[in-house]
């Protein structure tokens, strides 16, 4: 059997058997949910209802209820869209890229990160859909035969590329997630005794048997899906960035946008994974599986991607001056010193300076500090999108059109509402789904489990 160096920290703490893993993960599904779960779900659900109410108000009144005007015709809607898509990048990165790199630590975090991805992408997709105003015509984004003559969608347009990128990303992530869930649903199915619940999980598990050939196919599917999902992760935010980069708006017309957006997305995605997991490991007692080492690994990803983002900001600033294009230079001077200076400096502080604090080992292994930092990073990343979108639009080529953007309560209500919907979905997931990938954790137990590692080390000394 493959054994691992004693120097590597164990990824499953204490002495666990295969059965313990099943107990620890499936137990909370069988038992009554703790009171905290009901309280949190109620709060999230109420916020979600408020958001849905705001969306209905928007539909009945129109886009005029947002703070948009003829100069700033994209603002919170698209800021929120890009923010949520960015958050949705961590899940598939963890499950696909880290699978290709054979990172064992991904196994404790991939399931919940993928769930987060799916919910975040749903929230992201909400914004362009409701921005259409007439939601019932949303199918016009697809190249469908129609009664308007030879009227097709424009395949030259990055907005259409985005339709394909987001829908492909969403559906492939969903399939990837579900294929991993099938064997774990089977574990729950074979364990539950209440007939109604047993039936429900039996349907969800698709009649999984876990025979040798099924597992061979499972591994092949996971590997190939990871292989195709890896370029997909990078393509999605690249395409999102092209919505801006292919335009001629100063501040948007930038060739570094794709890599800059992708690293920003991974940066914010990991921050959101940490926000959720740090709470979940405590509430569901998963400390043995989501260890400080896991948190440290994710914080290292945050330093790396945060530094890439920082370099991108500074490169952008330098090039705006070096290019000699006065409109471009003004766009950046206006960002830093114009009426929206506070959002620019909020972005700089949260995204460039704060992740550098993780160079201190003690801090990146401190859970409370990490939790606060994860919120700071997500705030910073929201401001990044706001800065790019609103400050670039509110003052461009024609000074007579210069104006300010002021969000309305509908803007704010829908944004807060999507956070509510997101958390409601996540809490439902945490209650009814296996939150850790049981089968994958079991496969690494005897290699990276603390007690097994100690036994192996003892064995070597004799």
């Amino acid at each position: 059997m493959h054994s691992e160096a004693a120097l590597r920290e164990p990824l499953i703490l204490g002495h666990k058997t295969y059965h313990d893993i099943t107990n620890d993960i499936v137990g909370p599904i069988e038992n009554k949910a703790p009171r905290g779960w009901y309280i949190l779900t109620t709060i999230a659900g109420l916020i979600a209802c408020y958001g849905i109410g705001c969306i209905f108000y928007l539909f009945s009144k129109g886009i005029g209820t947002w703070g948009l005007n003829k100069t700033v015709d994209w603002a919170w809607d698209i800021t929120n869209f890009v923010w949520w898509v960015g958050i949705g990048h961590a899940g598939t990165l963890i499950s696909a890229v880290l699978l290709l790199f054979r990172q064992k630590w991904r196994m404790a975090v991939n399931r919940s990160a993928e769930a987060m991805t799916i919910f975040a992408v749903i929230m992201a997709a909400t914004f362009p859909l409701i921005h259409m105003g007439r939601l019932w015509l949303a199918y016009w984004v697809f190249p469908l035969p129609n009664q308007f003559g030879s009227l097709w969608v424009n395949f030259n347009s990055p907005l259409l590329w985005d339709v394909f990128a987001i829908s492909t990303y969403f559906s492939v992530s969903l399939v990837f997630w579900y294929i991993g869930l099938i064997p774990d649903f089977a574990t729950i199915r074979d364990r539950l005794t209440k007939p109604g619940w047993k039936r429900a999980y039996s349907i969800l598990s698709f009649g999984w048997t876990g025979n040798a050939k099924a597992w061979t196919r499972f591994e092949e599917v996971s590997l190939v899906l990871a292989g195709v999902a890896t370029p997909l992760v990078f393509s999605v935010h690249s395409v999102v960035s092209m919505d801006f980069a292919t335009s001629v708006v100063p501040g948007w017309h930038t060739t570094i946008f794709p890599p800059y957006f992708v690293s920003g997305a991974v940066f914010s995605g990991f921050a959101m994974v940490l926000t959720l997991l740090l709470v979940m490991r405590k509430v569901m007692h998963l400390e043995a599986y989501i260890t400080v080492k896991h948190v440290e690994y994710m914080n290292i990803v945050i330093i790396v991607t945060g530094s890439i983002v920082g370099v991108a900001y500074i490169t952008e600033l330098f090039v705006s001056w070096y290019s000699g294009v006065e409109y471009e230079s003004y766009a950046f001077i206006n960002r830093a010193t114009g009426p929206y200076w506070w959002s620019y400096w909020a972005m700089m502080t949260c995204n460039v300076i704060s992740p550098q604090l993780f160079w201190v080992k003690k801090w990146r292994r401190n859970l409370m500090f990490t939790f606060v930092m994860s919120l700071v990073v997500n705030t910073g990343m929201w401001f990044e999108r706001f800065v790019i979108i609103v400050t670039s639009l509110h003052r461009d080529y024609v000074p007579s059109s210069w104006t300010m953007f002021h969000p309305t309560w509908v803007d704010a209500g829908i944004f807060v509402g999507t956070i509510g919907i997101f958390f409601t979905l996540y809490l439902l997931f945490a209650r009814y789904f296996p939150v850790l990938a049981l089968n994958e954790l079991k496969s690494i137990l005897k290699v990276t489990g603390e007690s097994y590692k100690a036994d192996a080390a003892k064995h070597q000394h004799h």
Partner: protein
Amino acid sequence: MVNKVIYAVYEDPEVLKGAARKLVTSGVKVKDVYSPFPVHGLDPIIGIKRTRLGIASFMFGITGTSLALLGFWYFMIHDWPMNIGGKPNWTLYHNLPAFVPVMFEFTVLCAAHGMAITYLIRNKTLPGMPARNPDPRSTDDKFVMEVRTADNHGHSGEQITSMLRETPVFEINERAY
């Protein structure tokens, strides 16, 4: 003689692998193994061939690429060539760079979903299918090896059972079928 199916239950994947190797070298055919997670290195021992799902995925992928190209040609070149900023869509070749993102996305879409659907059908795992693992513990912490007497005419059921008893087996269950 009644055909029997013998289930040997193990507690560790490595132990099961050793037992399977022992049985196979003495000429017993192991029908299948049910486990809570993939047991690496088991397939060559019990004679399971490599899956061709990867090839299927590639086929679905190139089908997607071809369909996307056909679509671009029809929508953008043949049926209604758009003229954007004095740059008309006259040929597919000249307009191809703008079509690359969707071509890529559609390739991935077809490869991933085609493969996933093939996988579910080949494994006979579809919504509403009943559970077919012989022992419910095989999705928790037990590794179950299935040997059928019908596959093994050179050995009697008793011989196979006694061979299994020599391995560190957790329990042996027999069923007529």
